[in-house]
Structures are given as structure tokens and as C-alpha cells.
């Protein structure tokens, strides 16, 4: 019963968070200078043309009415229509989300596959001076090198030496699985560097935290092998921070890594939202931010649920608090 209440509380908190984000993004896009009719019609339009577009977009209503209309449509699944493409935003996002999701999941898979073992190794060898320095330098580089620098390097390298991978000729996986995965590889690799470095650092810290626990010391005293200790005691107990980080990274990646999408000409959510913001295409911006928020809230709730399965104390403490 306590767990059910805890889950219900988390879901309710998530819904309230989403409503707050909806209100915030709605107001935010309207206080930015440069209203939609001014941006889209450009400097050469007459006042009559501006007034007509304002009326068409419903921007002549008060903000509360506009918000009420928008949110009531959103809950029924109607995210509005793009004023640039004149297509339903839901359809446009449905085209772009799989593209971004492919790259995001590839990047996350690479990051976890590289970051977790590297983090474990770093922790196990933390007392070896040389290894610690090397791992700190590599980790620092991975986290601090901006994606636009790394991406530009990769674009330059692979366009000069193609190796069968072309830049800017992106193929969605839905059209051709093989070519889709191949064209997703480079942007996913660029994105995975930061994520892998962050995962390695989190894993290292989590593992180091577990290694000093008495039950690990007891296992060492019992003569268990290092691999057995890692598998049975360390990884299980270091899972929660890694899971939390993975969820955060996934939400970030699904929100759209704009620079990487721009560099590799990936028709994903990020570049779509950036253009929409530049053009004050309100419906698209609002829908895109809400999408990212939903992903973040849902993954956060799922991670908390997963964490409670790994360690039941999470839900117990959460319910008491």
C-alpha cells in the first residue's frame, strides 16, 4: 500500500511538473521579442497583412484564453499546426522523433558500453598514480571538448576520407535500416563522447563509494575474487546513480542535440525546434519543449521505480519523506 501511494505521488508530481512547464514555455515564447507575425511576414508587410495573420493565429485573444485553448487541445493529442509548413505539429514530430531517438539510443548505448567498464576500471585502479592521471585527463577531455569542435573535426575527417560514410546525406532508419544506422553512427559517436565521460566519472565515484563499504571489505577478507566482488556487490549497489544519470542523458539526447544535428544535417527534433524558435513558430516550440519535458518526467519516474526495485529502501524513504 505504501509503495502504491509512493508511485501515485510520483505520477501526480510529474503531472504537476508538466503543467508548470507548459505554462512556463507558453509564456516564455511570447515574451521573447519578435512576434510571429513580424518574423514571418518580414519587414516589407503592411499593417493589414500583419493584422490578418494575427487574427488567423489567434494571437489577438488574451493570453489566458490562448493558453486555455492550447492546453485543452494538447490533452486531446492536438499539438496544433506549424505556421511555416502548415502541417500538424504531431505529424512533423512523428517524422523527426524516430530520427533523434535512433541517434540518442545509439549514443547512450555507446556511452554506457564504454563508460561503465571504464569507470569500474578507474575505480579499481584509483590508487595507481599513473592510471589515475591518464583517466582523469581523458575523462576531463571527454566532458569538456565542445560538441561543435569534435563534430567539426569528425565532419572534416570523414568528408576528406569518406570510408563509406557520407556527411549530410542522412537516411532515416525507417527508410533503410542498414543505411540509416550507418548514417546515424557519426553523430551518435560525437554525442556519446560527453555521455561516456560523464558515465565513467559517475560510475567511478559510485564504485569507489561502494568499495569502502564494510560488506565489500568482508568479501575481500573472505577471499572472493575481484570480479566476483564487482559483479555481486559493487555493480548492484552502484546501479542507482548510473541509472539516474542514464535517464538524464537520454532526456537530454531526445530533446535534440542541436549542434550535432546541424553539423550532420540530421532532420531531428533539435534542429526542427531551433528553426521554429527563430521563426516564432509557437505551436512547434511549445510542443517540442513539452515533448522533452514529458520524456524527462517519465524517465525520471521510471528510474525512481527501477531504483526502488534495486533497493526497496528508496520507496520506503521516499514515502516517509
Amino acid at each position, binding site marked *: 500500500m505504501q509503495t502504491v501511494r509512493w508511485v501515485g505521488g510520483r505520477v501526480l508530481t510529474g503531472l504537476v511538473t508538466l503543467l508548470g512547464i507548459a505554462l512556463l514555455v507558453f509564456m516564455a515564447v511570447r515574451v521573447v521579442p519578435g512576434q510571429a507575425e*513580424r518574423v*514571418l511576414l518580414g519587414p516589407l508587410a503592411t499593417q493589414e497583412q500583419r493584422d490578418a495573420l494575427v487574427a488567423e493565429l489567434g494571437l489577438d485573444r488574451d493570453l489566458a484564453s490562448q493558453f486555455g485553448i492550447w492546453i485543452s487541445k494538447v490533452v486531446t493529442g492536438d499539438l496544433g499546426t506549424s505556421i511555416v509548413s502548415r502541417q500538424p505539429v504531431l505529424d512533423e514530430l512523428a517524422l523527426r522523433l524516430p530520427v533523434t531517438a535512433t541517434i540518442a539510443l545509439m549514443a547512450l548505448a555507446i556511452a554506457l558500453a564504454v563508460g561503465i567498464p571504464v569507470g569500474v576500471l578507474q575505480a579499481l585502479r584509483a590508487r595507481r598514480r599513473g592510471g589515475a592521471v591518464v583517466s582523469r585527463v581523458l575523462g576531463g577531455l571527454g566532458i569538456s571538448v565542445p560538441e561543435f569542435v569534435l563534430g567539426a573535426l569528425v565532419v572534416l575527417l570523414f568528408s576528406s576520407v569518406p570510408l563509406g560514410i557520407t556527411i549530410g546525406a542522412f537516411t532515416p532508419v525507417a527508410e533503410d535500416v542498414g543505411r540509416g544506422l550507418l548514417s546515424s553512427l557519426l553523430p551518435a559517436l560525437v554525442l556519446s563522447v560527453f555521455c561516456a565521460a560523464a558515465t565513467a566519472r559517475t560510475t567511478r565515484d559510485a564504485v569507489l563509494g561502494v568499495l569502502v563499504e564494510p560488506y565489500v571489505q568482508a568479501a575481500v577478507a573472505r577471499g572472493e575474487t575481484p570480479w566476483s566482488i564487482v559483479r555481486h556487490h559493487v555493480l548492484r549497489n552502484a546501479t542507482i546513480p548510473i541509472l539516474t544519470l542514464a535517464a538524464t542523458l537520454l532526456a537530454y539526447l531526445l530533446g535534440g542535440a542541436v549542434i550535432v544535428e*546541424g*553539423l550532420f544535417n540530421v*532532420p531531428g527534433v533539435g*534542429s526542427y525546434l531551433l528553426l521554429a524558435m527563430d521563426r516564432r513558430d509557437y505551436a512547434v516550440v511549445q510542443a517540442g519543449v513539452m515533448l522533452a519535458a514529458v520524456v524527462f518526467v517519465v524517465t525520471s519516474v521510471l528510474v525512481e521505480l527501477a531504483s526502488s526495485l534495486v533497493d526497496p529502501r528508496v520507496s520506503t524513504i521516499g514515502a516517509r519523506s
Partner: protein
Amino acid sequence: MRTTSTAALAAAAVAALALAGCSGGSAPAEPDADVPDGYVAYADDSVTSAGGTLQVQIDYDTAEAQGLDPAFAEVARSWSIMGLVYESLVTVGPGFEIQPELAAEWEQPDDTTYVFTLQPDAVFSNGRAVTAADVVGSLQRLLDSGSVWSGQLGPVASIEDTSDGAQQVTVTLERPYTPFLAALANTPAAILPMEELTAGTFDPVTEMLGSGAFTVAEHRQDESWTFAANPEWWDADALGVDELELVIAGDEQTRLAGLRDGSTQLANFSNADALQLLQSAPNVTAVSQTQSDFFYAMLNSVNPDSPFVDPEVRQTVNALIDRQALVDVALAGAAEATAVTPANLPDACAPDSVPSASAEVDADALEGVEATILVYNSDPALGAIAQLIQQQLQAAGAQIELESVDDGTFGERVYVSQPGDFDIALSWFAGYGDASIVTSWWNPETAFFNVGFTQAHDDLSEAIVAAQGLEPGAERAEALQTVCDLADEYAEMLPLATRPQVIGYANDQLAPTILADEGYGDFLRLVADFRMLEG
């Protein structure tokens, strides 16, 4: 969600430029002996096209509030894209010469009357023949639209169907207006299927139905266009391309990479350094097309908070700006300094002929002047120009800040706020195909978008109208010089330098035909003459 900005993308471009060993200046390409005058690339009749799909990457998509309606298209890329489907009565050729397009020929019985005879085989892609009624309806619709382009057509008195055997249209002007034909050559004056439009079976906002070389097969906004060859086109036999794929690739590095790795056959660049960057790419030829488009600076003479309300300060700034330095440093030598009349158009004023070019200015002439230069961040060239102007003005004692904002904010502060909320702002004008068209923008009563920062001057406005009524030649050149001199003295909108356009193509896969000069940003103007090679 992590946020970013165009500035970061620009930084990416800068990083890659640095990686590629860019030195900042580009060596102009040697002219090809086989290319005739007036072209920078030319596929002559000896080149047989293998046909197939032409892959092109361009910088941005159409994004007008009026969708795909050419009458309301305001940006150059919309003109290029819509021009693939629609035709105007005339087009521009080498040296801005007016050439036939949908009109097979025309005559001018007097200086206010134009009689156009349509191509006898012209049909819309739905198979219906183009009629004089379509021409009359389209041009009248443009005039009635209130679109800014209606003013550019000039003082049109009447447009009549005067068919007599052949399909014929007669346009009568209220007074002589020399840029009329050049204004007709722009995409907003495209001929639409008026019968279908009137019947409601064709919506020009959401679809394109024209008489041109291509039809739209698919469009995904900001991603790609697929065009199929129009078998109904009156010159279909000449078309060397079966299908045209336009990929929208906003980042210049992506377009450079597409040419390098062979996945694209043609791409455009506004960064003049692309000319040099592409020189080392195998099987890629890069050419620089001289645009009559030009950058200009707006000095706010209307807002009382602006230091440029004082005409002397404006004139001092005008005299201090070293246009040639902008060309050499900010635009990598791939541009020309210009006066109000675009430098590469016939009868244009020489930029060093205006009063400010020879004005003496004290070394500390701008002591105490504080101002901000406002630019928008989607065009990296503007930032480079702003930096150089900042240095030039600071050398004379001024305190100059730079401010870079997104397009929407720029538009709000410059064109919408009354008075304009800025001191100095930088942007660019299309140069069009006649030296006198763009001069209209120096009259804020015609160009209502600049009323928030410039003032109306009767003598300048009268000089503009007078010059637009004269035939090309010495007398008109003298009249345009008066326009240039007056605009220079008022110093509210300062012309700076032409806007470069670099075009790269895969020379093992494509033989394109590209004009040396262009006034409407349409580097795909002669795509029908392109020849696909068996690469």
C-alpha cells in the same frame, strides 16, 4: 533540454575553417578560357547529358507566412525554389540583359507600352495551355495584393488581354519606368494558373502549379524538396536533369562536406572563404557569382536617443567607413564596394565618386560618440563587417558596442519599433536586375519598412523617380549619380559592399551553367541548361 544558438553553429564553422587551415583571404579563381563572357560556368552543346538525379544542397528553405505563393515571396531562396516551377514573362541573362521566358518576344511601341507575345507551346504542368488571361490575372493579382513587389512593377495603368491570333498581353504604364522589365523578371511576377486559382481547385499557399521546367514531387519543410522534370514544359527537350533533389543543409560545413565526399553535386555558400576551402577538394570546382545584392548600414536618424540624429555625425561615420577594407578583410576579397546603385549593374555610380569618399575627417572626429551596432546572427558575414566597422569608428574616438540577436528580435527592433530601437544596424538588400530598382528603398514613403529610422527627403525621392524614368545610358547614369550623392549626404542608409555567393560543384558529375552576375540570388536560374555527366 539543452539549448544552443546559431552562434554556436557559427563557432563550429569557425572551428572547421581553422582546422582546414583557412588564412582569411581567398585567392580568386582563374577564369576558365572555355567559359564565355557573362558566365562563370558553362555547359555548351557538345556536352551530352546523361540525365538522372541532380543532388543540390542549399542553405535555407522557403519560410514565408504566405507559404508558397510567389506574389508574396520576399527572400532570395524562395525565389530560387519557386523559380524552378514558375515562370515569369522574362528573365535575366548575362550582364543583366532581359531575355524571353514565358513571353517568346515583346515589343515596346512607345515608352509606356509593352506588348508581350506568349510562348505558343506554354502549358501548366496540369496540361492546360497558358493564356493571356493567366498573365493578366497574375499581374493584376500582384498589383492588388499590397505586396511590396506590386510597387516595384512601377506605375502600371492597365494590363490587357490583346490576343490576336497569338496569346498577347499589353501593359500600359502611367509614365516611363525603365526597371519594369527587370521587375517582371523576378519570381513574385510569376504567372499562375488563374483559372484554377479562381475556381478554388488550386491553392497557391500550399502547392505549386506552374509552367516551368519542374514540378514538385515531395517537400519536407526545412529538410528537402524533390522536383521531377515537367514533360509539359515548352522547352522540355533541352532539360538535362530528370530529377532534382534539393537538400536543406543550414550548416556550411555540411555543404562543404557533401561536396568533398561526393554525396552532393552542387551547393551554395555565403561565406567567401568557401572559395579557398574548396580549392583543395578533388573533383570540385568553386566559382564566385557576383551578386548585385549588397550589405548596408542603417544609422538611426529618427530615434532621439540615437547619436545619428545629428547629420554631421552620420556624415562623419559615412566618411570613416573604409569599404575596401570590408571587402578585403570581412568578405575575403570576393565582393565589391558599392554605392546605392549596385556596383555590377549598368549605369551604377562608382563608390568612390560620392562626396563622402573624398571628405576629410579629423582623427578624433567621433570623440564622445557612443553607439551600438546591431546585427542578426544567422549571417556570419554581418558579424565580421560589424567588427571591422567597430574598429574603424573607434579609431576616430567613438565607443562602439556590438550586439548580435536572432532574426526575430532584429526585425522587431529595426523594422517594427517606432522609432527603431537601435543606433546602427547592418543588413543586406537584394540588388535586383536594374540599377534603379533598389533605389526605391531610399524613399521611406515607398519603402514603409524603414520609416522608423530614416526620414523622407523630397529632393532624394524626386531624384529616384526621375532616374527610374530614363532609358539606360549616359543621361540615366548622371541621374543615378544624383541619387547616389544625395543618399550619401543624408547618410541614413549607407551602402557598403556586394554580398558574395560561392557555388561549388562536382566537376566529374555535373557541367552546370551559371551566370557571372546575379541580382535575385537565384544561382539555379539556368538549371535547365545543366548537364549531368557519367561520373
